[in-house]
């Protein structure tokens, strides 16, 4: 640490002011909007918690909430499990491991909008890749249940590599001694994973889980392009619902309320998860 000096505020202030101006201020403005009935061309009308109450009576809102939760739970669970399995697999010596690992990195930054369209052609029912290879006739995009499966599958394709890379990095950080010591006690690979590997990388697992959950709740691009929220509203996640209410129906107040409820859901989940982390370390 350097000695105390006023200059530290000069360094910090521009970024802090920017965040205050462009994140905190819009957030408060949004909270205000959510308490009003905002109509273009007429003055805003204060309706208190009316927008929030409407949310709990709105069947579309309930539908979107359930879909979002299914999407997050299924997607993130599969990503975590597959990511861990792949990391354990790639942690073994094998020829060309570097190249294979590089291939696994590719989906990470692939433009989500483009990914959505690409998978539209992959899941296309006649002449698409999946049905073509497997000789199936699954209605991937036109059946409400399959459409949700497709959206989740794309998320899994894009984000399993993230879990994989982070898990692999933390697996490679475990010293050999641990395994050598364990070898004296047991030969069971499951026991070694359960009692050596898992406890060591547990903080990483929780961190990845946390990051994935917060990101998954924000999902918008993939359903927007792959299914446009459909068929019907079968894949209309909360972000998309809020977007449509705001920018298709121009109900800014209700849209803000939906966004805030989404924000609260994410916060509650993160708080409970963080609590669980603290408990494990007490």
């Amino acid at each position, binding site marked *: 640490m350097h000695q105390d000096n006023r200059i530290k505020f000069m360094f910090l202030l521009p970024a802090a002011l920017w965040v205050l101006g462009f994140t905190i201020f819009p957030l408060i403005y949004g909270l205000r909007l959510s308490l009003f009935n905002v109509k273009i061309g007429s003055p805003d009308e204060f309706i208190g918690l009316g927008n929030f109450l409407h949310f709990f009576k709105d069947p579309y809102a309930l539908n979107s909430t359930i879909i979002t939760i299914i999407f997050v739970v299924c997607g993130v669970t599969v990503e975590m499990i597959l990511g861990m399995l792949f990391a354990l697999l790639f942690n073994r010596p094998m020829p060309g491991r570097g190249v294979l690992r590089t291939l696994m990195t590719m989906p990470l930054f692939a433009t989500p909008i483009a990914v959505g369209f690409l998978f539209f052609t992959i899941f296309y029912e006649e002449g698409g890749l999946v049905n073509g290879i497997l000789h199936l006739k699954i209605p991937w995009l036109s059946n409400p249940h399959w459409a949700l499966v497709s959206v989740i599958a794309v998320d899994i394709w894009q984000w399993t590599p993230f879990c994989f890379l982070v898990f692999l990095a933390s697996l*490679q950080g475990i010293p050999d001694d641990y395994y050598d010591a364990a070898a004296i006690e047991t030969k069971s690979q499951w026991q070694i994973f359960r009692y050596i590997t898992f406890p060591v990388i547990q903080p990483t697992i929780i961190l990845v889980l946390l990051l994935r959950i917060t990101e998954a709740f924000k999902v918008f691009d993939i359903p927007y392009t792959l299914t446009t929220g459909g068929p019907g509203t079968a894949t209309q996640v909360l972000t998309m619902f809020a977007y449509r209410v705001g920018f298709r129906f121009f109900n800014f107040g209700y849209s*803000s309320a939906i966004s805030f409820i989404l924000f609260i859901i994410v916060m509650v989940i993160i708080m409970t998860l963080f609590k669980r982390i603290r408990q494990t370390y007490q």
Partner: protein
Amino acid sequence: MAMSFVGRIKRRKISLWGYFILALVVAGITFLPFYWAISLSIRNPIEAFTVAGLAVPFVQYKPTLNNWKTELATGETQKALFNSTIIAVCTALAVLVLGTPAAYAIARFRFKRPTNQDITVWFLSQRVLPPIATAIPFFLIIRFLGLLDTRTALIMVNTTFNLPFVVVIMRQAFIDLPIELEEAALVDGANYLRIFWKISLRLAAPSLAAAVLIIVAFTWNEFLFALMISGVKTTVIPVLMAGAVDTRGIQFWFVAVRTLIAMSPPVLIALLAQRYMVRGLTFGAVKG
């Protein structure tokens, strides 16, 4: 290494090959959509639906570059590529100018109230916020400022999204640098501004470069706010893609070309910044 132990238990070569083949399959499935996009992009429109299964070029159909030529010659596409590039590069610059000094301050000076940890967590917590929660207010602010359909507005939005990322990442980068050099310079009479500019920034150059690459990729991919703010003048690649489908219907061969045009820069960045990926995506919590 971890695997040497497992190797010792199972010395059989067969299982080693088994794992290799399994890894090959996993990597293959991950790569398959990219292969499909390439295969689709060099197909004749007539063959888009008729070629079955894996669609191997040369074997199942005669590849052509016509789709690529047509798409790249389109004015709209060129303009969108230009806009996306300008916005991504300017965002990266703006974020660095705002973010690195703040990161340096948190890494090298002691703050009391709020503490350094509080400030870091405050920046980090911005990432938890679903962007849609600030979308409408942001839209109204931008409209109020008369900046709808300008590149400036898109740079502002993306700067806001990426600023917390850079503060947290660069903070870790500065902490990892030895402080002794800076202290020696202080003794020689240099001031903090000079030290930051002449020593710390230069030593942190690799992290800085990785941060720039990751910001460019994030900005390139951003869609939700671009959809709200951009218009005819400032169409970026993701918005161009979304719009083209609305007006033309889905033409698989062009979708594939556009998909590849859109994806290539960020995917290339992911490969270039591979070493920093784990650290970057976990906000410095896990060292890759």
